[in-house]
């Protein structure tokens, strides 16, 4: 199934690390020093014994097709530093000729193989359709009430004028957001919170606030009329309001190239959201896989940038067809080895504009841009087409903006010359996430 000739790069391994501390600890274990009995199987697994401070070495196994990890150490990090170290060592030196797994590794690998082979959606209990329908109706009624209240709140805002908002403070909006949570419309709650922060976001805020209030209003209206909307748009509205996807989406098999992976932490620091952008190499379809980490723990799903997974991606209905869940995988991930083709700045904005037809609330659209030249500026950075005079601004503050460090890295890669950049292109500009230098197929994930 896999061939260990196509090993991952060290960056790709380190991308799996749940946090910085593990990354460093794993890096230190990535040499032959502490390891014994390293081996790998033809079916895509590696194992080894890692000498720690205790008398017994830790037993570490990694299933590369997952990837999934098993280690006898007490760490609750996932993958632990031993698994990372083992993968780093494998990435640097391989694991020798394919071999049979030793007993301690074989049992777990067999269990895993059995688990994966089981059909995915093994529905647990017979569905209580009548009960489900009643619950859905109750929830819809609560959302109806919430939407009515929110419309009232927006009308009050416009009646009194935005001018008072600068002094009004955030508390009122926080309360409205809490009401939306009570109404079981978390999507609306999030937008309301966002709206409340705009008056403190600097010059030009009234126009931005009007825009966001208007789009929220549009969503309220769409909710009321959701029964009459075309199926795709209706699904978008439901998911934007915050309902879970009701039906199974479309499954698409392709070789999916991982274009970016990054985490954002909610303002209260309690939830980590991991976004993973992929693109089908055959079909060209973009996909966004999300994973969430509970308080204090990073998300479990990790897909290193530059790897290609042959897999089925299950797209959720609505939201411009971006949201997907990773379905069955058919092979271990392998490095891509080519640079995806880029488009011009104009084409990038057109793609975003076209996607708004499916989802008018869409903030941005995934685009490979290039060749472009990064232009640093004290007031703002730009990415300019290598030919011509067009450029996209890079948002520096607010949602989706990246650290300055990543931008300097991008400038360093370009040296004033053209690069290929993957990122999110939206109404605020283009946020770079990954870059390729002209003479290399190695993607660089921007910090």
């Amino acid at each position, binding site marked *: 199934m896999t061939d260990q000739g196509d090993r991952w790069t060290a960056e790709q391994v380190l991308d799996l690390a749940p946090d910085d501390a593990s990354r460093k600890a794993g890096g230190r274990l990535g040499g032959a020093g502490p390891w014994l009995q390293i081996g790998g199987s033809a079916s895509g697994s590696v194992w080894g014994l890692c000498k720690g401070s205790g008398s017994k070495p830790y037993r570490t196994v990694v299933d590369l097709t997952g990837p999934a990890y098993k280690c006898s150490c007490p760490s609750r990090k996932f993958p632990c530093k031993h698994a990372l170290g083992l993968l780093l060592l494998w990435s640097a030196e391989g694991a020798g000729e394919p071999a049979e797994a030793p007993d301690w590794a074989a049992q777990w690998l067999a269990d895993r193989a059995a688990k994966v082979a089981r059909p995915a959606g093994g529905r647990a209990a017979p569905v209580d359709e009548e009960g489900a329908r009643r619950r859905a109706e109750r929830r819809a009624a609560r959302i109806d009430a919430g939407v009515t209240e929110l419309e009232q709140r927006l*009308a009050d805002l416009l009646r009194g*004028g935005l001018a008072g908002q600068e002094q009004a403070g955030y508390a009122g909006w926080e309360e409205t957001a809490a009401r939306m949570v009570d109404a079981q419309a978390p999507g609306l709650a999030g937008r309301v919170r966002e709206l409340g922060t705009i008056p403190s976001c600097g010059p030009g805020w009234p126009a931005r606030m009007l825009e966001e209030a208007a789009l929220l*209003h549009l969503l309220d209206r769409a909710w009321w009329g959701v029964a009459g909307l075309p199926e795709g748009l209706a699904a978008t509205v439901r998911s934007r309001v915050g309902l879970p996807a009701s039906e199974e989406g479309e499954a698409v098999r392709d070789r999916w190239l991982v274009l970016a992976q990054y985490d954002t932490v909610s303002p209260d620091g309690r939830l980590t959201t991991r976004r993973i952008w992929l693109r089908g190499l055959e079909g060209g379809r973009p996909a966004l896989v999300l994973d969430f980490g509970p308080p204090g723990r990073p998300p479990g799903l990790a897909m290193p940038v530059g790897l290609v997974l042959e897999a089925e991606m299950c797209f959720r209905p609505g939201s411009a067809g971006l949201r997907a869940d990773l379905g069955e995988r058919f092979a271990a991930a392998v490095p891509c080895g080519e640079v995806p083709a880029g488009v011009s700045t*104009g084409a990038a904005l057109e793609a975003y504009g076209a996607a708004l037809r499916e989802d008018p609330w869409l903030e941005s659209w995934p685009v490979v841009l290039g060749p472009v030249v990064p232009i640093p500026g004290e007031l703002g950075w730009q990415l300019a087409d290598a030919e011509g005079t067009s450029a996209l601004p890079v948002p520096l503050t607010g949602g989706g903006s990246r650290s300055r460090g990543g931008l300097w890295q991008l400038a*360093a890669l370009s*040296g004033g*010359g053209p690069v290929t950049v993957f990122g999110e292109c939206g109404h605020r500009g283009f946020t770079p996430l990954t870059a390729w230098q002209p003479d290399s197929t190695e993607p660089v994930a921007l910090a």
Partner: protein
Amino acid sequence: MEKGDEGYGEWEELVAAALLGTDRRRGGGGGPTGSPEALLDAAAVHAVRRRAGLRPAAAHPRPAPAPRDPRPAPPQAAGRRLAQLLAGRSGAVNGGGRRGTAPDLTELLPQWLAAAARHGYRSPNALVPALLDAARARTDLRQQALALAGPRGLWLARMNPDWRFALRGGAGAGELPEVTDRVGVERLWQEGLFAERVALLGAVRAHEAAAAPRLLSTTWATERAEDRLMFLDSLRVGLSEGDEPFLEAALGDRSRNVRATAAELLSALPTSALAGRMAERALACVGPEGVTPPAECDAGMLRDGVVKRPPAGRGERAWWLGQLVEAAPLSCWRERFGGLGPAEIVALPVATGDGWTEELHAAWCRAAVRQRDALWSRALLGPASAPPAAGPGTASLAERAKLLETLPDAERAQWVAEFIRAHGLSEAFQLLGVCVVPWAGALGRAVVDALDTARDAGSYPWSFSGVMGLAERCLDPAEADRLEALTAAAQDLPDAAPGAAAYWAEAFQRLVATLRLRAAMLAELA
């Protein structure tokens, strides 16, 4: 929405209406914005239309492309290693004194940089910002890190105020004219900033030693005293007899510091006139018949850089004597002592007898270091196995380390190895610091054996953490296999400190891991 776009005026009106509030507008007469709902409806249409119809902006002026760096990038594995080392730079210290079994990545960065420089690599582009950050945080890394970052690093530094430091000092050398371009050199020397001029002087000196004093003389009279001092100091590199006329002239400088530096440089040239004058004075004070320190500090001595006032607590005659002997060429003593060699001279009763001994030996040590005289250094160091206090020269480890530096590499390592075999590790740290990395076989073995002995003695390994750290960085990586045997956790010896055996095993594991890491690191760069 931009000014001039279709619909921009209408949008402006909507924003104005929203700011004011529809209640206050109602009197103004209906329109699409009469009710809040109508206003929101209209704004929603505008918002989606604006987003869907966005067009690219006009590009700002592009940065000039970075100058080409002809050096190759290091192999991929080496680049990844550098990324790891740079990432480990911050917060590598995991609190507390105990370091565990993992190598300390921070300490390996200088070695990686030095090895990469030897191979003539440039930095991988993606790591240039991290290198600049490292150079900013650690001045000891600065020169190497900036050299590796090369022209792209300077190009980047020019755009980011955080990295302005990179444009100061010698690193600006990328901008220097060719040293053979007389007009360019002349112009930069006349008009350049201080840092550029220092860099230029260094480059000129490296190209043709004699050209540096020539360049200096053109503006010498107009330079500020502190600049004169810095320029003069830069002549230390490549010092030769050709510099004598310039230095001799500097003895008459207005600034005392400039005079002192000029005298020091001249005394390092044994054939200089100043060295001759100093020899004459010193020979008059010291001979087989005994030591008679100078009775006064005359104008000639002052001009030749002798400092008249001794530091507090020292007699002035001893102070003057020290300065004379220090600045006299060591070669003058053989004849004075009837053809004896340095070893015999330092052992003479005249030199060991009366109260001036210490003064005399200390001055000879300084002279040996300044004149880089291996013969005298060897004599003053004495046999490595002798107790430091009984040695002929100096008991100070710092002075001994300096003397050792004048010996050939192999001899230096041999001497320190013998010293460790005789006296253990407790005083070896400074001496090890001047040995060439990686340590020669005998030296490495002496250190490892001494560590093993220390373990058997039952003390904790952190009493030796300084030497341990040095060993991690300096032992030949090939020693790793031999060391493996020491990494096994042993039982505590009966009279050992509790738990010491486990800590020692851990320390040796870290040592081995670090050596293996260094071996891998160097192999990746090859």
